[in-house]
């Protein structure tokens, strides 16, 4: 069954099982591999993307549920002003270590700043606690969000 959706501003169509998680549609059908597979259970946040502006776990979001939706992935995250500021801040703070979780971190941080332009420490913790970083780059994630908000 053909399903239409918008990915990073482009209209896309995919023939596929509506039960296939958006994560694997992005990685396998659209070759957008910036979105990462970490746990497959919504526990680590590595697969975070935006669906109609909301940060969601793409491993728990089925293709059939995003019919007609606007998806933003890490590859398109810097298209907005907030996304540009987050990306620049991430580079300035040299946030990544291994880097594997960072796409998800950036997508969560971008959603946070889009909705809460001046987040408090508590706002940051609440918005980011679903995103694991095995290297523990949390000190810099906080700093980079604050710098991008300033």
């Amino acid at each position, binding site marked *: 069954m053909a399903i239409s959706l918008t990915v990073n501003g482009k209209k896309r169509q995919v023939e596929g099982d509506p039960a296939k998680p958006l994560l694997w549609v992005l990685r396998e059908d659209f070759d957008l591999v910036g979105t990462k597979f970490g746990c*497959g*259970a919504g526990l680590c946040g590595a697969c975070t993307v935006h669906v109609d502006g909301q940060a969601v776990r793409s491993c728990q979001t089925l293709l059939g549920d995003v019919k007609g939706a606007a998806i933003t992935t*890490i590859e398109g995250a810097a298209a907005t002003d907030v996304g540009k500021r987050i990306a620049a801040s991430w*580079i300035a703070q040299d946030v990544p270590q*291994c880097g594997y979780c960072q796409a998800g971190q950036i997508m969560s941080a971008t959603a946070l700043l889009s909705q809460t332009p001046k987040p408090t420490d508590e706002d940051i913790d609440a918005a980011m606690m679903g995103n694991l*970083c*095995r290297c523990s*780059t949390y000190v810099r994630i*906080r700093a980079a969000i604050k710098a991008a908000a300033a």
Partner: protein
Amino acid sequence: MSAANLSRRGFITASLIAGGGLLFDLAVPMALAADGSPVILNAFIRILPDNRVIIGAKNAEIGQGAKTMLPMLIAEELDVDWAQVSIEQTHADAKIFGGQSAGGSRTTPREWLPTRQAGAAARAMLVAAAAAQWGVAAGTLTTASGKVTDPKTGKSVPYAALAVAAAKLSPPDPATLTLKDPASFRIIGQSIGGVDTPAIVAGKPLFGIDFKLPNMLYAVLETCPAFGGTFKSANLDAVRALPGIAHVLTIKGDGTPESGFDGVAILAKSWWTANLARETLKVAWDDSAVTNFSTQGYAAQAATRAQGKADADITRTGDIDAAFASAGKVVTADYSYPFLAHATLEPQNCTALFKDGAIEIWAPTQNPESGRALVAKALNLPPEKIRINFTRIGGGFGRRLMNDYMVQAALVAAQVPGVPVKLLFTRADDMRRDFYRPAGWHGFRAALDKSGALTAFHDHFITFGKDGKPVRSAELSPGELPAGLLDNVLLEQSFLATNMPTGWLRAPGSNALAFVYQAFLDEVAAAAGKDLPTLMLELLSKTAQVSQGANRPPFVTARAKGVIEKALAMGGWANRKALPKGQGKGFAFYYSHAGYFAEVLEVAVADGVPKVKTVWVAGDVGSHIINPINALHQVQGSVIEGLGQALAGQVITQVAGAIEQANFDTHPLQRIPDTPTIHVDFVKTDYSPTGLGEPALPPVIPALVNAIHAATGKRIRSLPVTTEMLA
């Protein structure tokens, strides 16, 4: 190129590349390998016609910063600006590149001299070319920013313009090269962000999981839940009949976890499709020999063994019995800790293409040569028929020092010649097929004389082993402190049998031993009426050095004292008693991976829940911090990871030979709200620089439990810390 037949003057070749640039193919002799053959470092430096410089990064990048740090060493001595430099990852080949493993915090000490020599050799050839052109002595010329300058005439020429001439010169003997005076370093000591950071932030395909080839199939692998079970039968045809499934096949392990056990592989164009087919797959395993292993069983056996005689002496000095018989006070305590998984965020994966009797592999591996040897054996291939390419690695922590997933991908690929295969674990596969940090139990005794001085120390360490030897990462060093710092010491081990594969988890051994030794010594200090840093400084004042074995640098007590005094000052140790009730500061010192680290930690405990507020870290890793921003990141990450091992609830348990935990709900990692303030400072000493991936981790755990004791009066003697322990 064979390492053995390189002549002394043949270590450097320079050749022109298309477009008029210069390729330096540098091979600098390093320390002799164990078999006496020279170990060669080969560093590719390419100087392009527009004077840009491309430097090959030869080590695996797991987030430890080697891909940035090693090229910094070359660029420094080549005397170019960092802005001119681009980095390319090399492939894996020990014959060309020398050591390429990422483990043991070994990269910095191994590469500090030869990698700088590689840069200096190229610079010397460019200077010689300019000197010949201008008819002056090479020694009168200077370099900076990728240019050679004659200070007398003010003439200056970019390296690129010297390429043709330099390529014709004989390369220098590395032993004759003069390296820069550290006072003139312009790159070493500067904070330089990760070379891949912009690509990571843009979501570019960098990792093993991202690598794709045309017509590639994805593979999932089912193995026996109990380690070591063998394949009996399966409904392979039923799975083959499912839509989208390309192949279903079996692979045979060799009975060792290192090569991977028996498995059933399902291949499809889509990983999701292949993985879904596992719901249909039904495999009968023969696991009768391995289902008797369980966490409960180990604990019961350990309790029994603790009452008896140990299996092996590790260190026995002085007269331990006499010292305890004459003690004024004897302190005893039992400590323990669980198995842990590595849980790298990028699940284990590997891409392989078998074609025409050779195999090419794209692997996130920390230890490629070990993988090559295992693949050669499994496929019965000569090692030169195996090419291994590095991908960026989504977390190592020691998991990818093992190459089971590489062997498995190779075994699958060999059955579908010409078709590239990417094996990818699910999170549950990853957590249940790890090489675990082994659990351990320690029965401690310490003797104090009437003046409160520590006179004897005894540890009966019950761990896992076979035939009287510890399993991987269950070793106890004969030089484990306080051995060497007092006269009467008995360190001994007993071994339980297990089917669980064990392996090196960041700061292996040390991540557990620091906890039990420094927490027990905190109890000993308290019994003697002093604090732990006072006890440590007393012990450290007795000798200048403690041997750590033939191939390791000795432990230098002055360096330990230096970081202890620094951490105490940073952490306001003298004023710790001023904290309100329910808050406390703890201290610990630990030496591992040639790094000296002392840490002070402040915790607040409310309703049985510890909240770490601040950690102060003082470290000594020698004369230079090569990349300060990365050094800070390594220490921050080590501290938070250590706290996670103690506080997040991490534990791996086994029932009937198989692992119970499958994901981050049952083996949790620290999350952002648990992040304390971390202050880091380094004590620079006149020793060659050593690594930072590991040594900051071990002391944070005992500093935490010692702080919890200061806050609550309760001793934490097993991990993880639970609310019940603090109730």
